[in-house]
Each structure stands twice: as C-alpha cells, then as structure tokens.
C-alpha cells in the first residue's frame, strides 16, 4: 500500500495505491462548520443531488447510468464529525481489468454530474423534486423517533449539549426552505467547504490527477480548518434523569457521561481499552453482569462519542428493572475507576485493537476511513496504531475513568410493567 497526498489548492487529493481489490473506491468529502439551519441544508443537498442532475432527469435515469458502469455503487450522505458537517460522496466500481479501460474516466464523469451539474433552473433547484426530498426526510426523521433507543439517545444529547443542533429538532423548518435558498447554499458550500478527495485501488496516479483536474470543478483556495473536537466544560454535581412514556414492548435505558477533555492518546487508545472492559462486547463487565448474571436485558453496550468527549451506556430492559440496571451499571463503572478488574482484559483489548487495525485493510472504505482520521482528527497511521496501543497501562485506564462523570439518564418507558 502506497499513500500520497497532493495539496492542489482548492482541494487535497489522497491516493492510496494497492492491488488487493477487484474494485476501486473514491470518496469526496466537503466539510464545513454549520450554523442554524445549515445542517439541514447539507442534509437536503445530500438527498437532492442524487435525485436528478442536469443530464439524468430523475433518480431512475441516474441509477440506470450507474448500472451501466458495471453497477458502480454510490451514495451521497451528510455526516457529522464533531464541529463539522460533511457532504460525502462515495463510489465503488470494478477496476479496469474486470470492467473496461474507460471506467475511471466514466466514473469521474458520473461524479461530476452529481456534484457539479445539478438540475437547476433560474438559479433554483426544482421545487417539485425538493418537495419529494423534504417529504422523505420528514418521514425518515419521524420513523427514527419512533424507535425508542433512537429517541432516548436524541433526548440525552438535547439535554447534555443543547447547543449542538440536531436536525430531528428542525422538522418544522424543513418546509420553509426554498429551491433558491438551497441552491445559494450549495454554491456557497462549494466555495467555502474544505474538500478532500480520497482514491483507493489499483489506479494510475497520473490518470487520477488528470480526471480530478478535469471533473472536480472547485477553484477557490481554502484556509486550513480547525479541530473537529468538542470539549465539555459544564459538569453536573448531581445527575439528571428524565422519563419519556411510549407505548412499546421494551423500555430503553440511555445513560450519558461527560468527560474532561481526553488527550489524543486517550482518545485513540485508552478509551478503546476502557470501553472494551466496560461494555463494548460480549466479554465486557456490563454484558457479563447485567445480561448473563442477572438476565435483565438482551442488549447492553457502552460507546464513546470521542469527538464530543461523551460516553453512553444503553440497554433494552423492562421498566420495572430500571433502578436495578442503573445501579449495576454504576457499580461496574466504579469498579474500573477503583482498578477492580481483571488485568487480562487490558491485554485482550490490545490484541482486539490490533486485529481490528489489520482487519480494516480488507475494506477499501475502511482504508480510506483511516486516512480520513489521520487528515481530519490528527490520528496515527496503521503502523503506529499497532504499536502505540501496547503502551496503555492499568493506571491510564483508571486515570481515564476519573475523567468520566455521570450527567443524564433518559428512560423511554414502555408498557412492559406487567409482572
């Protein structure tokens, strides 16, 4: 695997050459810090730009075009990465050996069509098309909010970080956005957004550079971005809890913790080990205690939102077991901060980390993802990660445990109270 970065002014081109796959993968990221409704704009753009283009007048034609490219698999999505919102285009396609010699250029033409040749008339996106996209988005957001675990987590975030805007809370603003307003934002995003293009596969670098120059129509030179990470600075002395009633079979327990700002080493390594011990898998304290020993749940997990310095514990339970589950979670978290856990788990966590680090190499988007983390989040390379993880000690884990503060508990309470 051979990685090269080309700083080309309006964008950075990252080429990761390897001949392991029968496909090539391209990911184009346009990132920006959003204010107010802008997060909603990016969401709508990610939905709208693949519904039609100037050449392909509906998603059917666009999809047929991708099928003609030996079924190139593409998606356009809006992603959140700490302070940034990202418009992300990914495409994976058979390489020349299995397709034909024009495939790379044809794919770039296709990308150009989606990102730079939108279906626009009189400086506005088509209102009908936009209305369809709005209706879908509203339905999708409502569907998500119907799922207790999603609802619980969203409520948790609202309480813990009210300043971070969630598009679920903007449902009522969706209808107000016009085709013209959105088109203006699209133009601004291309001007203002920081653009990175990642290409992974058995590709000819010159050919890629040529195609990028020809088909990626972005000309404004960008300033360097800022850190993606969000620090927590308001900690509660006493945790807060909220109950939402919903007519469902199983209750969803969501517990949120805030962390004093983690160091880069803690973010990349110690938090992984901590999470492994607490609740990331079937060998964790929570799984063994809450599920296997007390039979209180089928799923229980802890996860880190590392960019936000937040940790979650979630479980699907009967509401009558709410207090019991909560106290078991607290007990296990306390155990780690007191160092009362099997040190073998640290070594296992390290081995899992290394295995995961190598496992990523089996997926092109996995490989790209690692280089994105290096570019955006100041993280380490594959090789360095494989070595750095070994430096995590029990003291590191206990030190991190002391940074973790219980903040908010949300129970989505179902109609499961019958004994």
């Amino acid at each position: 695997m051979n990685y090269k970065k080309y700083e080309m002014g309006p964008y950075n081109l990252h080429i990761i050459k390897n001949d392991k796959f029968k496909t090539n993968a391209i990911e184009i990221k346009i990132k920006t810090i959003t204010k107010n409704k802008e997060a909603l704009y990016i969401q709508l753009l990610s939905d709208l730009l693949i519904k039609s283009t100037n050449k392909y007048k509906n998603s059917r034609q666009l999809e047929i075009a991708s099928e003609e490219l030996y079924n190139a698999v593409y998606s356009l999505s809006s992603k959140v990465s700490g302070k940034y919102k990202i418009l992300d285009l990914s495409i994976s396609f058979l390489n020349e050996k299995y397709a034909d010699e024009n495939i790379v250029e044809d794919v770039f033409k296709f990308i150009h069509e989606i990102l730079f040749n939108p279906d626009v008339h009189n400086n506005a996106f088509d209102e009908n098309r936009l209305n369809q996209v709005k209706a879908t988005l509203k339905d999708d957001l409502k569907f998500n909010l119907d799922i207790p675990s999603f609802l619980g987590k969203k409520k948790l975030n609202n309480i813990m970080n009210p300043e971070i805007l969630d598009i679920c809370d903007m449902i009522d603003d969706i209808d107000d956005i016009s085709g013209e307003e959105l088109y203006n934002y699209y133009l601004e995003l291309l001007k203002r957004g920081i653009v990175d293009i990642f290409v992974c596969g058995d590709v000819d670098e010159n050919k890629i550079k040529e195609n990028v120059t020809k088909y990626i129509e972005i000309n404004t030179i960008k300033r360097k971005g800022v850190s993606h990470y969000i620090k927590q600075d308001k900690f509660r002395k006493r945790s807060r809890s909220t109950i939402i009633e919903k007519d469902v079979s199983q209750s969803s327990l969501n517990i949120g913790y805030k962390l004093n700002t983690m160091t880069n080493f803690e973010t990349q390594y110690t938090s992984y080990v901590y999470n492994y011990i607490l609740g990331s898998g079937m060998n964790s304290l929570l799984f063994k205690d809450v599920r296997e020993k007390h039979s209180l749940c089928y799923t229980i997990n802890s996860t880190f939102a590392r960019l936000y310095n937040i940790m979650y514990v979630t479980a699907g339970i009967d509401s009558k077991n709410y207090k019991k589950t909560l106290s078991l979670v607290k007990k296990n978290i306390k155990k780690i901060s007191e160092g009362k856990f099997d040190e073998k788990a640290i070594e296992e966590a390290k081995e899992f980390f290394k295995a995961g680090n190598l496992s990523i190499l089996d997926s092109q988007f996995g490989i790209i993802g690692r280089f994105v983390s290096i570019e955006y989040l100041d993280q380490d390379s594959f090789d360095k990660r494989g070595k750095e993880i070994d430096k995590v000690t029990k003291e590191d884990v206990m030190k991190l445990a002391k940074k973790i503060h219980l903040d908010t508990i949300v129970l989505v309470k179902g109609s499961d109270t019958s004994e």
Partner: protein
Amino acid sequence: MNKYEIKGFDIDLYHETLDNGLEVYIIPKNNSKNIYATLTTRFSSNDIEFIPIDSNKFVKVPLGIAHFLEHQAFEQENGKPIFELFSEYSANVNAATSKNYTNYYFNSIGNLKENLTLLLDFVQSPYFTDESVEKEKGIIIQELKMNENNPYRVAENIAAKNLFVNNNMKYPIIGTIESINKTTKKDLYKCYNTFYHPANMFLVVSGNIDPIETINIIKENQSSKKFAPFKKIIKKEIIEPDNVAKEKEVIEMDISNPIVNISYKVNISKIKGISINNLYRWCHLFLAANLSLTSELNEKLINEGILTNNIDYYIERAGNHFIIDISGETNKIDQFIQEIDKQLKKLETSENDFYRKKKCMISNNIMGSDSIFSLNNFVSFQVLYENKFDIDRIQYIKDMKYKTYMNLIKKLDLSNKTVTIVKPKNV
C-alpha cells in the same frame, strides 16, 4: 480433498466430506487479513415435530427451540464463557438462527487453529442445566420484546402467520413468551442430539488460511471425537396449500407513518428444469426490474406521492413456495397495494432491463469475491439449499437468454397473497 477453481473469481474452493459426515469447504484468500468460519446445522425454527435420534415416535418441541438452543450452545461445562475463550485469541464469535438453518461463526486475524478448534469444540459439547435454561429465558424474552418494538419485524411476523396454513414458517423464529417459558433442558438435548450430528452440518472456512493446514486441524479435531451413527432425520411431513391462511390484517402501533407489507406465496414446485438457487436468482432479477430504483413503478409511486422512500423487497424460500415480500411506508395504502399488484402480475421485464440487470449480477458476483464474508455466504447458501457448489455461476448467468428467462417468469403464479398494515395508533 478436492480442489475447484471458482471461475471468474480468481479463487479456489476445496471440499471434503469427513468420515463422520461433516462437509468441509475451504476458500483460501491470502491477500485478506481476516479469517471467517461458519459452522451450520440444518436445524431451524421450522423443525418442531420430528423423530428424535433415540426414539421412533414423533415428538413436538416448544416453538423457538432452535433459537433457544443457539443461545444455550454457548454454555460450557467448565463454566468459562465461550466469549471469553474466543477473546483470548482476538476472535469475534456469534450465532444466528433462521427459518432455514442455525449457524455459529467467528472471525479473527490469525489464530486459526485455536479458534477453529474452539468453534468445533463448543458447538459439539453441549452442556445444558436447569439453571442455565432458566437464566436464558429472561434474556430471550428481552430479545423478543426488542423485536416487538420494531414495526417492520412485527409486520413480518404477522405476514408469516397469515401466509401459511400448515408450514411452521408461520411461527416467529424466537417463539412466544409462553413457548420460551415452557422450554426445558430435556427438550434442548432432544433437539441437539438429533440435529447437531456432523452429518447434518457443514463447515465453511474462508480467508487468510492454508487449505492443507486447515483441513488437518479439522480432521485432527473431528477424529478425536466419537459420534453415534447418523440416522436419517425424519421430520413431520407438511403439505402446504397454495392459498394463504388470511388475506389481510391491520394492527396499530405507536408509530408515525403507516407500514404496508404485501407477501406473495408462489408455488415453485411446478417450475421444472431449474435449480432452486438459479430460480431464486431470476426471480430476484424480475423484482429488481419491476420494483427497484430503476423501475418505472418506483419512479411513479414517488412522483405521485404514494411513497416517500423506495420499495423494499426480498424473496424467502419456504419449501415448495417462494415468498415474495414487499414493503413500504405510505399514507395511500390501497393505491400502493393496487399498483404493486398490477405491475407484478404483468410478469414482464424489458429486454434492455434484463440484459442490464444481468450485467449487474455478474459485477456483483465479482465484487463480492473480494470479501471473505460474501464468499463464505455464496458457498454456504448453495450447500444449504442444493448440497453442492456451482463453480461456474458467472458463465451460467452470462449464458442466460432473455427468452428462457421470460419463459420462467411467465410461470410465476402471483394469485395468492396476504397484506399486513401497521397503522399509527390514534391518540
């Protein structure tokens, strides 16, 4: 051990049937880092009435027992949880139960011998106790309740109940709270001893492995174990009519948008001269041509505001029937059902669509061959349904003619269906 080349994939497949009857398939892919192994038994949630290995009378076991057994298989005599043992070799282990099989699998980087031995050992050394069975009930009931929170899962279960008259596929894989509570250690052993014989199972190992080393590990492990002679498993014969049990059901849930599920029950036993996997493939193409994003119908339903999201569809095998399952979120329920029904019953695919989708099918196969997980699934499903592996499927797909395809499609009988509607509760 026999070696075959999977044509068009640049990949070899090795096969051997061991003395105890276990079928072993090995797919080395040495530019991968991962190893993936799946151990599958032909025991599913459907198998609730059969003659146990040590008897000659039919018994009926509680619903959901295959799934219960899958949970309990992780219990070990020495008390050390299986998850912990695999963790020592950095492997992820899990299992799944469906209406057609139960399988156990791990993936890891390296440590082939340790993990493969663990997999075979834990599945082949059952240890169920009254306590472990009791303890598991609470966990499984929570899993059931989790499913009940998902309206799509709920719709799927109702559709199954209404589709079948006799076929046990009408029951949910997980069973019911009542059947879970009723399950005993004795029931579990009865099922285990009957269905977990190596001759009723197969093992597929793919990834960064050496085929000779792999088969030697497996042989060494298997030859050290004793198994009773295999007795052909007799399951209660079920004759399933073509009609559905109930044509429509409407329920309410605490959701925002109505969900509609249309399930067709299609008799395939009358379609001769084609394997079930190949028929499945062409039926899938038929659905893709008529319902996917490239179909005129999908475009129409979106444009007319009948759907806001694309149509979802899949096919399930059910004995002599294929179940074609279609769902969508819509406020215009009747229109949605009519439009889908009208379109499918035309039994049409344009020649253009056919050749384009066929090209996609070939691309998908090649793309899938980059993944040791897809490769493993390719082999497993063919072995499960046909007891063999088709090493030249790409050529078969290439050779398929439009006329032959249309002749097959015209034979699909879509006159039997059930409709399930999940409506938002009126508050």
